[in-house]
């Protein structure tokens, strides 16, 4: 736990007292682009620590959160030009919301840009705390028990100290701890039930349901619906309220949860235009860094994850069944209780997928086909073979990292027959060759919609 020094205590009181008027020191539309030459992002070596709900924080964790934001605010006072400081951080968001930079809202960049933004914000707070175990908390408004402004963000002071989580520009309802209107969460329309990414997260030129649904509505409710729409109610000023980061942490969590619920139908876009898009952020060492969307798709290498589950859903979840896997023979087998169900003809064609976890990836760049059993004869279109179940695309670049990943493959009839019989062996081979190798992984699951 980082220590709060006496000298720093006094400085933070000053910073906290100034917090409500600090915005006046900066122009309303101070959305200047970041200054500097960016370097490429390198995947860090961080422990994977779960982010927690605000409601789950211990008293010590609440004190650490307050200290983190107190130091961030103090940095703005002691060195307004430090790009890691409170107002400079807020202006990064302003810059990317139509100020002088590209607007990352209203399209499929909404989720990944904010994940990158929160990641660097978290790294800066860790640095200021000298504590690498700090993780941002999320405002779990998906749970109806937490649909008001969290209590630790409400008071202007805590004892005699300014509350670094306080913001003076909030609606009266939010300040009073009143519940959000139920219309934000219609009973029968729920973005977590979106059937594909275009609906959930948008496309190259269109916003998705979570962004212009609860995300926007909670922004407005927190900031107030009256002119001049301060802080949370105004895109360009929103990141001047500490609750912004907890709100977006929950948005980020719901994105991860939506992906988790159905790895097939809820897959993220795979377009190169999406994955290779990059954005600049200042890191904890004041270095401007370009991070690509593909670097933030999986949060685990960035040092954080979320406990599975969210309450913003009435939709049915896909059924997951763990398959038997013999690591010695590397054969997958169906459990007895589902053999009959899988073999029975169904009036409705079911969508079944095979998910294998912790796959050891090939080390050379290329496209690899995955088969049940041996690869077919080279020369034919291997993706049309009856034992083809999917592919792995590997791009070994400057920043290639060897973290484990999951593969979503087709649970084809051939796979099900073999897994229901003597067992199914998965192999992979470079496209167009017969040089098959056994696929190495830790566990296998069958998902069914």
């Amino acid at each position, binding site marked *: 736990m980082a220590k709060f020094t006496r000298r720093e205590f006094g400085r933070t009181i000053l910073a906290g007292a100034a917090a409500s008027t600090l915005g006046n020191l900066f122009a*309303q*539309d101070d*959305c200047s682009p970041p200054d500097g030459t960016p370097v490429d992002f390198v995947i860090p070596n961080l422990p994977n620590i779960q982010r927690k709900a605000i409601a789950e924080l211990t008293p010590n964790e609440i004190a650490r959160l307050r200290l983190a934001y107190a130091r961030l605010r103090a940095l703005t006072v002691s060195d307004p030009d430090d790009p890691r400081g409170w107002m400079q951080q807020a202006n990064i968001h*302003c810059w990317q*919301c*139509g*100020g002088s930079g590209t*607007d990352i809202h*209203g399209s499929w960049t909404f989720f990944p840009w904010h994940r990158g933004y929160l990641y660097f914000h978290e790294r800066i707070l860790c640095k200021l705390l000298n504590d690498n175990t700090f993780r941002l908390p999320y405002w779990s408004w998906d749970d109806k028990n937490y649909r008001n402004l969290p209590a630790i963000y409400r008071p202007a002071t805590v004892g005699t100290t300014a509350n670094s989580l306080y913001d003076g520009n909030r609606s009266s309802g939010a300040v009073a701890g009143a519940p959000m209107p139920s*219309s934000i969460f*219609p*009973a*029968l*329309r729920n973005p977590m039930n*979106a*059937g*594909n990414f*275009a*609906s959930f997260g*948008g*496309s190259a*030129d*269109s*916003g*998705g*349901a979570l962004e*212009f*649904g609860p*995300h*926007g*509505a909670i*922004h*407005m409710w927190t900031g107030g*619906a009256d*002119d*001049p*729409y301060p802080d949370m*109610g*105004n*895109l*360009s*000023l*929103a990141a001047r309220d500490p609750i912004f980061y907890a709100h977006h942490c929950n948005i980020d969590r719901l994105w991860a949860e939506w992906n988790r619920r159905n790895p097939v139908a809820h897959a993220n876009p795979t377009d190169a235009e999406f994955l290779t898009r990059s954005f600049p952020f200042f890191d904890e060492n004041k270095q401007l860094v370009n991070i690509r969307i593909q670097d933030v798709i999986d949060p685990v290498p960035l040092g954080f994850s979320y406990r599975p589950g969210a309450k913003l859903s009435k939709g049915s979840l896909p059924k997951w069944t763990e398959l038997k896997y013999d690591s010695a023979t590397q054969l997958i087998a169906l459990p007895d209780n589902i053999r009959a169900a899988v073999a029975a003809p169904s009036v409705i064609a079911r969508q079944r997928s095979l998910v294998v976890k912790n796959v050891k990836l090939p080390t050379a760049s290329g496209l690899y086909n995955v088969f049940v059993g041996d690869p077919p004869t080279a020369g034919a279109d291997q993706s049309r073979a009856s034992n083809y179940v999917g592919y792995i695309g590997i791009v070994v670049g400057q920043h290639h990292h060897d973290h484990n990943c999951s593969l979503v493959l087709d649970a084809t009839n051939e796979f099900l027959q073999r897994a229901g019989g003597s067992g199914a062996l998965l192999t992979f081979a470079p496209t167009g060759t017969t040089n098959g190798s056994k696929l190495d992984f830790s566990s296998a699951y069958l998902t069914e919609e």
Partner: protein
Amino acid sequence: MAWPIACFFALAAVVMVDKPVTVAVPVPEKMRESKIVLLQLQGVVMRRNAPAVWNVFWEMPSADAQTSVDIAHFAGYVTSLANSAARSAQPANFTLELPPAAVRATRRQRAIRFTFVPVGKLPEGGVTITSLHLE
């Protein structure tokens, strides 16, 4: 099916100021078997100095600001935050996934009527939706 006089096909821009507006959006023939149907609102233009919120109902032209959103004919809502830094009113696009009952309706109707209901005051000049289509 008879179409009320107030309803028109969404071939021209839809302008929402302070009252609900109902438009009929044709169902493309190729979409009649789709499991997921998206309503695309394209070229949505409004002044960004104020927020905007509107509800969308399907086959419910009587919907107004008092209509509950917890009904099967509610298709969703759209929020647009104020943005004092926005240099101009850049058009935005929004995607709404139709609820299951509305998807079933696309299999038997040549068009679906959507009613756009302002929630609270819209920015001065209202909201213009340049085009709508189902995909």
